[in-house]
C-alpha cells in the first residue's frame, strides 16, 4: 500500500487483466464448498419456513415487526440488534486475529457468489484454458450460444437471489401469488431487479475488484493482524530457488528448493496474485493456492505444505504445529475472546429477561388535573400496551403509590395477538391525600393468562393548589 498523499496505481481499474481462474479441489476447497452450501441453504431456504402459521423469518416492513421463529422483535428492540452487530464485529476481530481473512476466504457473500458463478462458468464454457481461448476467438454461432447460456444462467440465478432477498421483507406467500402472474408491486419488482443486478455485477463481472477496491473490511483487517496470526504463506526457505525438474528428483541434488515453478498457485488464485511474493493485501485467504500446491507436492512426492497456514513468528523461528497452536492464546485473542463471551452472555441474559409486555404511559396533556365531585382530583393517562406474543391476552391495570388512589372503570383490556392496545384511564385521588404538586404514581399491568407477567411503570400525579 502507498504512503499518504501519494497517487495509488489505480490505473488497474481501467486496464484490469481479466482472470481465468483455474478451478481447484482439495481439503480447503471442500471447506469452501461446505460453507457455500450451508450459507446458501440458509439464505434461500429460510423464507420458505413457516412457524405459528406465518413466515418463520421475516422483516415485515408493513407491520414493522421482525419475526424470528418464536420471537417477534419490534422497533423498540433495536437495542438487541445493536448488540448483535457489536457481537458480529468482535467475532470478526477474533477470527481475524487468529487466522486472518477466514471470513473473506470462506463465508463472505462476495466469495460465495463468485464461487457459484465461476462454477456455472466452468460448466458452460469449460476450464480456464478453454475460457481463455474462447475469449480470443471472434464471435461466431458457438461462442454466441455459450455466452448466451452463461449470461442466461447467471441471470436466472441472480433473479432467484433477488426474489429471495425481497422475500425477507415482504411475505413470501404474497410474492409467490404475484409470481404466477408477474404482478409484483412496482417496488417489489424494482428491488428484485436491483438486487439481482447487484449479484450479477459483483459475482459475475467485478469479482476480485470488489475485495480490492470496494470492501471496507479488506482495508482495515490488517490492524487485527500480528506476528502470530495464521496467514497463508509460501515457505520461501524451503521453496527457493525455484525451477522445473522431473518427478521425484531430490531438490538438493539439482541445487534447487521444493518449488517447481509450475505457476499453478497463481492460476488458481481468484485475485490473480502470486503468493510467493509474500503476504499481499489482495490475498483474501481462500487457501486455493494451498490445495493447488499440495497436489503438486503429492505428484512430486515431496511433503505437503510448501504453501500453508503459518505465522510470521513460526516461519522465522521454525516452529512446528504445536508451537503455533500455543501462540493462538495471546493477549490480543484473549481480549477479543473475553469481549465476545461477555457480550454473548449479556445478550442471552437480556433476551431471557425481556418481558413480552410493554407499557408506555402518556399523561393527558390537555388537562393536567381536574377536580371532580366529592373532593377528588382526577388525572387522565393514556396507556399503550404492547402484547408481544402471538396470543390474545387480557390485562388488568392497578395503581398505587398515593393513598386512596383509585382507577375509574377498571375493566380488563383485551389485547389482540402481537399487537398494541391503547386505553385511556382516569385515576382519582382525594384532594387532601398529599401536598399540592406532582407525586410519583405507579401503574401495574398484569396479564391474566400469565400470572408471572407484570409490568410496573412510574408516572406522576398532579395535585393542584
Amino acid at each position, binding site marked *: 500500500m502507498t504512503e499518504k498523499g501519494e497517487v495509488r496505481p489505480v490505473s488497474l*481499474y481501467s486496464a484490469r487483466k481479466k482472470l481465468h481462474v483455474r478451478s481447484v479441489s482439495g481439503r480447503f476447497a471442500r471447506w469452501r464448498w461446505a460453507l457455500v452450501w450451508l450459507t446458501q441453504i440458509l439464505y434461500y431456504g429460510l423464507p420458505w419456513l413457516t412457524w405459528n402459521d406465518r413466515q418463520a423469518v421475516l422483516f415485515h416492513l408493513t407491520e414493522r415487526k421482525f419475526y424470528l421463529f418464536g420471537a417477534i422483535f419490534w422497533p423498540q428492540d433495536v437495542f438487541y*440488534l445493536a448488540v448483535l452487530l457489536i457481537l458480529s464485529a468482535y467475532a470478526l476481530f477474533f477470527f481475524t486475529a487468529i487466522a486472518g481473512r477466514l471470513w473473506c476466504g470462506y463465508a463472505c457473500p462476495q466469495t460465495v457468489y463468485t464461487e457459484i458463478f465461476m462454477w456455472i462458468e466452468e460448466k458452460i464454457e469449460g476450464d480456464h484454458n478453454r475460457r481463455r481461448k474462447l475469449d480470443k476467438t471472434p464471435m461466431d454461432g458457438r461462442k454466441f450460444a455459450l455466452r448466451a447460456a452463461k449470461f442466461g444462467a447467471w441471470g436466472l440465478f441472480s433473479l432467484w437471489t433477488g426474489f429471495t432477498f425481497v422475500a425477507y421483507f415482504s411475505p413470501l406467500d404474497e410474492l409467490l401469488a404475484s409470481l404466477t402472474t408477474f404482478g409484483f408491486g412496482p417496488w417489489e419488482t424494482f428491488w428484485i431487479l436491483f438486487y439481482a443486478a447487484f449479484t450479477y455485477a459483483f459475482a459475475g463481472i467485478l469479482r476480485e475488484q470488489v475485495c480490492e477496491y470496494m470492501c471496507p473490511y479488506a482495508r482495515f483487517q490488517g490492524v487485527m493482524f500480528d506476528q502470530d496470526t495464521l496467514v497463508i504463506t509460501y515457505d520461501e526457505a524451503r521453496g527457493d530457488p525455484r525451477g522445473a525438474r522431473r518427478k521425484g528428483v531430490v531438490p538438493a541434488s539439482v541445487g534447487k528448493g521444493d518449488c517447481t515453478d509450475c505457476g499453478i498457485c497463481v492460476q488458481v488464485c481468484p485475485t490473480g496474485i502470486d503468493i510467493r511474493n509474500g503476504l499481499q493485501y489482495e490475498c483474501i485467504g481462500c487457501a486455493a493456492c494451498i490445495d493447488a500446491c499440495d497436489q503438486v507436492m503429492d505428484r512430486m512426492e515431496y511433503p505437503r505444505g510448501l504453501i500453508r497456514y503459518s505465522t510470521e513468528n513460526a516461519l522465522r523461528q521454525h516452529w512446528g504445529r504445536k508451537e503455533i497452536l500455543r501462540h493462538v492464546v495471546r493477549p490480543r485473542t484473549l481480549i477479543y475472546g473475553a469481549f465476545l463471551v461477555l457480550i454473548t452472555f449479556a445478550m442471552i441474559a437480556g433476551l431471557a429477561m425481556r418481558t413480552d409486555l410493554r407499557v408506555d404511559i402518556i399523561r393527558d396533556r390537555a388537562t393536567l388535573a381536574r377536580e371532580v365531585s366529592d373532593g377528588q382530583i382526577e388525572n387522565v393517562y393514556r396507556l399503550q400496551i404492547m402484547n408481544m406474543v402471538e396470543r390474545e391476552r387480557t390485562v388488568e391495570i392497578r395503581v398505587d403509590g398515593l393513598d386512596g388512589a383509585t382507577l375509574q372503570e377498571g375493566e380488563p383490556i383485551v389485547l389482540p395477538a402481537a399487537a398494541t392496545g391503547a386505553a385511556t384511564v382516569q385515576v382519582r385521588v382525594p384532594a387532601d391525600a398529599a401536598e399540592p404538586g406532582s407525586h410519583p404514581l405507579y401503574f401495574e399491568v398484569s396479564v391474566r393468562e400469565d400470572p408471572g407477567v407484570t409490568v410496573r411503570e412510574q408516572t406522576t400525579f398532579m395535585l393542584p393548589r
Partner: protein
Amino acid sequence: MLKWILVLWPSFLVAAVAEAVFFVVVDPQQLYLFGEPVRYSPIATYSIGFFGFWLACAASSLLTLFLQPVGTRPPAHR
C-alpha cells in the same frame, strides 16, 4: 469508472445504515409530506427514503472528490 465507484459505493453503504437507523426510529406512517400525511405504501416510503439518503450521501462523496487536493486525486478524475 473509478470516480463513479468512489462516489456511489461509499454513499450506498452509508445510506443503507442511515436508512436502517432512521426507519427503526421513525414509523413511515407518521411522516408528513408538505403538511399532508404520507400516503405511499410502506415499501414505497422505505424505498424513496433509501434513495433520498443515497442521493445525499453521493452528493457528499462527489464534493469530497471535487475538493480533494490535486495531487491525491485518483487519475480518472484529473
